[in-house]
Structure formats: C-alpha cells, structure tokens
C-alpha cells in the first residue's frame, strides 16, 4: 500500500448521529488511507456504519442528525471536515462523486435523465446548455445505454433498474472525479445485471484512473473488484489488507466468521454453515471492550475489558484483535 501520498486519508473519523433511541456512534474512530487509482472494498453488515462513513466523507449528513463530527478527512491537501459548505460543494460531484444503492429512488422522478446529467456539467465545468446536452448523450453512450440520444429525454420510471444505475454512474462520471464512492451499487439489482454494472464500473475506473470505494455487504463482489478490503463492524474498521491475502487468511475472527457464514457456490449442497450467534450491538451503547467479543468464539476476559486498536501486521495488513487467528497460508 502506498501510504506516502494518499489521495484520501481518514484520521480517527467519528460521526455520531442523533436518533430517537439516543446518540448512535455510527462511525467511531476510523483511520484509513486510499491511494489514487486504487479500489477499496468496504465490507460490513447493515448497520455497521459503512454508509454513514461514505456520507461523512462528502459531508452529506444533515446537521439535524449529525450530533458530533470528529477526526480528519484529508483530500487533495484539505481537511473536508473543516471545510465550509461552499467549499464542500466544489468538491462534491467534481472531485468526489457518489453512487447510491437504490436506483429506483435515487433519480429525480419528475426530471428527464439527460438534464439530470447536464446539471453537474453546467455547475462544475461551466458548460453551456447545448454543450452539456451533447456531453450528457456522450456519457450515456459510454455507460452502455443503447440509443443514448432518445434515452436522454426519458424519465427515470421509463428505464429498468439496471439502466437507471447506469444513468447514476453517468452522473457520477460527468466531471471526471478523482474518487468515486459507490454505496451498494448492485444490491438492488438482479445477479446478471449486477455483473454488467460491476463490469462497467471496473472498465470506467481503468479508463479514467480514478480511485473507487466500493461499499458492499457481499464479500464476493469485493473479491473480484477490490485491490484492498476493509471490514467494518459496529462503527470501526476491524481488519484491512490486500484483497487476496485478507480473504485467504483472515486474522480477525469476525472476518473469518463472515466468510464462513455465507453459502458458496463451490461448496456441495447441505454444507453446514457456520452462523455467527447473536446480532451486532446497538451503537447507542456499544460493548466496552472489543465490540465483537460478545459474539466471538475466541473471546476471553481481556477482550471484554479493553478495545483492541487496529494495528499494522506487516505486508500492508492491519487488524484489531487481541487473539487473532494464525496465518494459515503464509
């Protein structure tokens, strides 16, 4: 991992949210570096804070909800946490773009798709209406939408889910961002369409040389896409490393359990799954020590007392565990 000059670097990032149930520590001390052009897979179950982390980077959490925002978000020589709303607006869509999970609700239902792409172009690149229109058609073409010129005057509800997700990608790519954050971009799609969208993301990333943060709950998706993987649990990153090494040799028991609990195509039928008992903690009142300890087969007394810090463990790997699994394939 090239830590010398990262594109994005998070230092002890904290986002606490105000909710009816109390203060939720959705992101609670995340430190992470991402180099230009690399792909990071951010993996975790629902409620682990991965989407809040993504929205925090762009400052998209409403003030009404975000109770406490701590840490640093270094990007292009600035700290986005300390930037004004006006400064952030110049970064959003221009340098960091984002794709959301649900293509059905993420496009404005009353606007045609062409104009929805044009607005980013006109806002950030100052293009005139006719230029922007041409560029929008070109972008629709690039993301694999057939008959792009006709589709540009369609409304979102006239397109299929896969097509809408392509439109979202076109909007995100419009200003050639340096970083693309894709929050569960294929979760709502059928598996054959998911494969198409992943192909498209990979192809566009390679062509534009942008960095990609791919947020997903599906370890299979990151296996094929990411250079490195960060596993999140209960608001923290518990393990981080190069994809192949991490998947082959998870050190943190949660990573290992996550890998074993999902059924695989390569296993024979009726293979007994190793389920993780219990459920993730409520982040209003997280456990004192390691947050995975109550569900962990390897936990001992010290795990429940003191939270482990995430530490370097050689060859670009980091994990947070007092009693890590041994390296099996080393």
């Amino acid at each position, binding site marked *: 991992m090239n830590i010398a000059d990262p594109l994005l670097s998070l230092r002890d990032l904290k986002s606490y*949210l*105000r*909710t*009816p149930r109390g203060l*939720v520590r*959705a992101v609670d001390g995340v430190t992470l570096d991402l180099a230009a052009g690399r792909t990071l897979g951010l993996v975790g*179950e*629902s*409620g682990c804070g991965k989407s809040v982390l993504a929205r925090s980077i762009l400052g998209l959490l*409403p003030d*009404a*909800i975000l109770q406490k925002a701590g840490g640093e978000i270094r990007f292009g020589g600035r700290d986005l946490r300390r930037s004004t709303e006006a400064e952030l607006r110049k970064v959003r869509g221009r340098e960091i773009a984002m794709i959301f999970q*649900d293509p059905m609700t993420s496009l404005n239902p009353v606007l045609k798709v062409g104009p929805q792409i044009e607005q980013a172009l006109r806002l950030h690149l100052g293009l005139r209406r006719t230029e922007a229109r041409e560029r929008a058609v070109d972008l629709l073409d690039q993301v694999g939408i057939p008959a792009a010129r006709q589709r540009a005057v369609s409304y979102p509800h006239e397109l299929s889910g896969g097509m809408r997700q392509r439109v979202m990608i076109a909007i995100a790519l419009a200003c050639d961002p340096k970083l693309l954050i894709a929050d569960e971009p294929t979760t*709502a*799609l*059928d598996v054959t369409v998911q494969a198409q969208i992943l192909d498209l993301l990979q192809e566009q990333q390679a062509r534009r040389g942008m960095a990609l943060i791919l947020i997903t709950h599906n370890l299979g998706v990151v296996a094929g896409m990411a250079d490195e993987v960060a596993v999140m649990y209960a608001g923290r990153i518990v393990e981080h490393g190069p994809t192949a090494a991490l998947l082959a040799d998870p050190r943190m028991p949660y990573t290992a359990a996550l890998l074993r609990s999902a059924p695989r195509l390569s296993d024979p039928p009726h293979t007994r799954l190793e389920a993780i008992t219990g459920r993730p903690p409520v982040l209003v009142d997280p456990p004192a020590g390691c947050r995975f300890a109550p569900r962990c087969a390897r936990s001992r007394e010290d795990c429940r007392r003191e939270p482990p810090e995430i530490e370097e463990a050689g060859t670009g790997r980091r994990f947070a565990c007092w009693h890590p699994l041994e390296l099996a394939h080393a």
Partner: protein
Amino acid sequence: MTLSVAERERIKVVGPRRRWGDLLVALPAAWLGVAVLAAVFAPLLPIPDPFRQALLRTLQPPSAVHLLGTDALGRDVFARSVLGLRVSLVVGIGSVVFGLGIGGTLGLVAGYFRGRTDLWISAVMTVILSFPPLVLAIAIMSYAGPSLALVIVALGILFVPAFARIARANTLSLAEREFVLAARAMGMRDLGILMQEVLPNLVAPLIAYSMLMVAVAIIGEAALSFLGLSVPPPQPTLGGMIAAERANLLEAPWAVFGPALFLFLTILSLNVAGDQVQRRLDQREAAL
C-alpha cells in the same frame, strides 16, 4: 426487490424534546377535561342563569358576578358560553362518531374486498364529495329545519367519505401485508381476518384522525349556528352568540370574544392533542 430490514430501520430524525411533548398533551387534555365536565354539569355550576334577561344590565363589562360580562339582553355571557360549548361538544363528538361508524365500516369493506364492492362504495363517496361540504350541510339544514339530531347527521354525513378514505387506504395496505396472507394460508375466514388481523391495526390511525375531525366538526357547527342553521334558540350556541353580538363589537367586545375564546381554546386543544397523538403514532410506525 425490497430493501433489507435493517435498511428500513434507518435512522429517523427525532421529534421535539419529550418534556415539551408531554406538556403539549397535558395542557389541551386539561382544558378538554374541564370543558367536558363543565358541559355535563352546567346546570349544577354556581353561575348565573344563562336565560335570565336583564334589560337594565345590558352589555356590562366583565365583573366578579359576570365573568365575561353580559350581552345585549343582559344575559350572562360566561354561563351562555358554557351551554354553547355543550352543544359544540355534543355535535362535534356525535357527528364524528356517526362518520367514523359508517365511513370506517364502508372503508374497511371496500379496502378488503376491493373489486365491485369498492367501486360502488367509492362512487357513493365521490358523489358526497361532489358538494362543497358546508354547502351540503346548509342545504340539508335549510330543507329539514333545525334540530340537534339533524345537525349531527348533516355534519356526520360530511365525515363519512373522509373516514372511509382513511379506513380504505389503511386496509388496502394492510391486506397487502404478508401476515394477512399467512392468516388466509392457515385457513382463517374473511370475517376473522377483518376483525382480528386488520381492525386492530386500524384503531390507532382512526382515533388520531377522529380527534382532528372533532375539531373540524366544532368549526362546522359554529359556522352553521353563525348562520342561524344549528340548534334553534333559546338554546345558546357559540356561533349564534357571536353572530348576535357582533353588532356591538366595538362597545362590548367581551360578548363576542368571550364565546370566541371558548370556541378557540376547545378547537386548539383538540388540534394540538390530535397532532401529538398522530406524531407519536407515526414515530411508532417508523420504529416498526
């Protein structure tokens, strides 16, 4: 494809602080409690006789004897307002119960059985809704003559479509829920499903809505009595008192604003309490 369960449990923005919210329920509830008690026990209250005229003591300003002064015929405004409030509450609650009973049942049936039943019920509702509500009430009252029961029915008819709509919409979405399908899959009959599975889920939204509708009904009664189309004299009504005394607005504002205050506080209390109940229901709904 549906969103995951956890996705739906997505964090919601919080409402106003709890203490403030409690106060917003307590104060209106207190006023409504006092108003209902006063209306019920009006004859027993230590207040002047609301019907006694005193032509030498007309348009007296508020005093220890006459808390809200006297009107153009020298009658005690406070005592008459209490009696007027009695009419407002009886009509308000009565017409909403009428609308809730008929509209709620029709909506439930239409939403559950759909098809032709729904079509016919909806058609009838559309026709009722084709008249401006107050004009329909005025028309009914003008042809049939004023009486308490008739005011209740005339206003109650106006609420039938509203309750039918709410009951129907809720039933439609409930009937889509898989627990209704599960009940049918275990062999439960339609009546059982309606009473045991659907109805319990309708109670809360209909109750919250009812409180708001009582407020609307009281406004409707006030408008009718302002036009002289509600309960006939000598029974005082708040709207009638205001209409009669507005000629003396400058000299004796208390004779107008006294009953107006009763009217306003009662409607406001119903609206505030209804909003709070509604909000809590929504929050509970969101937490599900």
